[in-house]
């Protein structure tokens, strides 16, 4: 395999917020490289800076120190090369499913015919052709999240950042969407950074699980997941990883690695 250039490079990123009781260090000295086509999960206790890191990569927040490069270009704001999928969907309520999916291409000045063709293709890919003319408030949570994913892919994003995208969904829908996401990822060669609270979800999806620890937020450990897909959540190997990650998450106050 030819070594691909890193799709994402986070170098010594620190993020400080001005809080009511003084400064909050949301993220300290974070280092992270994600190869092109890699699927990385970020996991860690609440408040350890997962969203902050993702939002800095997305360009919604500026790092206080350090730099972020995506596909060898320095990030200095949000851009269509990095699609973001939010836990609360962030669909445009005044647009139909079709127009939500076509929003990116239309925004970037693509012609009508091209927008229509792209939209159609992704509508089919997520299996929502029958709901093309529905508005977001008429969809279930799972359907909304499918639209949110399609909207990012329809916009040619090569890097997809997902912040607990399935966190608000019931277990069955969540599993369905995990499978669908993996299929999409495998067929498109996307680079994915996926934040989750759920250890199992991380092991099921990721090539690598990056464990973060709070107070102040930092990257604790990088755990490769060498299991072949599709993964069997009840296999001994899966369980061993589950135990390893639980231990890391449970005891990270005691030993913050340096």
């Amino acid at each position, binding site marked *: 395999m030819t070594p691909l250039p890193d799709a994402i490079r986070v170098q010594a990123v620190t993020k400080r917020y001005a809080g009511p009781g003084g400064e909050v260090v949301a993220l300290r000295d974070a280092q992270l490289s994600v190869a092109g086509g890699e699927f990385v999960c970020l996991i860690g206790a609440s408040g350890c800076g997962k969203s902050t890191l993702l939002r800095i990569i997305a360009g*919604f927040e500026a790092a206080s120190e350090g730099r972020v490069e995506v596909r060898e270009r320095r990030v200095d704001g949000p851009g269509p090369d990095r699609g973001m999928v939010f836990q*609360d969907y962030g669909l445009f*309520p*005044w647009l139909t499913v079709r127009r939500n999916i076509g929003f990116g291409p239309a*925004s970037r000045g693509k012609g009508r015919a091209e927008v229509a063709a792209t939209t159609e293709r992704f509508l089919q890919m997520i299996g929502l052709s029958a709901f093309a003319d529905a508005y977001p408030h008429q969809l279930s949570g799972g359907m909304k999240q499918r639209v949110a994913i399609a909207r990012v892919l329809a916009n040619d994003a090569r890097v997809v950042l997902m912040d607990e995208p399935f966190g608000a969904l019931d277990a069955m829908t969540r599993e369905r969407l995990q499978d669908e996401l993996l299929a999409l990822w495998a067929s498109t060669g996307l680079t994915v950074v996926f934040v989750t609270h759920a250890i199992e979800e991380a092991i099921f999806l990721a090539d690598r699980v990056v464990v973060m620890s709070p107070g102040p937020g930092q990257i604790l450990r990088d755990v490769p997941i060498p299991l072949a897909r599709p993964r069997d959540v009840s296999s001994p190997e899966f369980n061993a990883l589950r135990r390893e990650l639980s231990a890391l998450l449970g005891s990270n106050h005691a030993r913050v690695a340096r």
Partner: protein
Amino acid sequence: MTPPRLTRLQLPLAMALPLLALAGWWASTRGSGYRLIPAPGEVGWALWDLGVGGINDDAFSGMLLTHLLASASRVYGAFLLAAAVALPLGLLIGRVWLARALLDPVLQVLRPVPVTAWLPLSMIVFGLGPRSAFFLVALGAFYPILVNTVFGVRSVEPRLFEAAAMLGTTPAAMFTRVVLPASLPGIFTGLRLGLGLSWVVIVVGEMTGVETGLGAMIMDARQLSRTEIVIAGMVTIGAVGYLSDQAVLRLGRRVLRWSPQHA
């Protein structure tokens, strides 16, 4: 939301209180002799005479349409003028910090001043007459439209700006692609309130120095102690105000089909 099972009951329920009030009114004005309040039947005849004439053949007969058109043209003219000023101003104040810092305090201080308090000043500036009425209506409609537009713009979810930005929307395009559609519900509420208030204010505005208009008609009737015409005028205003509001509401439902609060 009305439970679907109960929609059949809506009309009878809506009619219950008015019919009861009408019955009470009728009962209390029965019999002969001097009364301060005319009986419902007299008001009905007055309305008929105002509309098509042929009963009293006095200065009021057959004049309803003339008065109504005069009032309606002022209401819609002034409302459109108010909207033409308040909408862009509201979008600006909601979106641009400098505009907000500059204009918002002034507008907030002027807002509690009731429209009627402007009447003397407006008569000095615009003279006694229709122009003054027009100004008052425009002023009355201005604030609800402005305030709700600003509110609509200010309450656009920040998430939607992020979503649009990561999909490649430029800051300049943000206004038409996100701000405007997202604030439509607020804008619509403002337009609806503004138009409703216009019908309230027009009557006050037309009460002095105006020849035609529903307010002028009511005032003339009052001076001649034609209370049945006063009430007929009130009924007319209620009816056209209601119809006008229904029209706006219907338009809103079409435009805001996407909004769960309006669909």
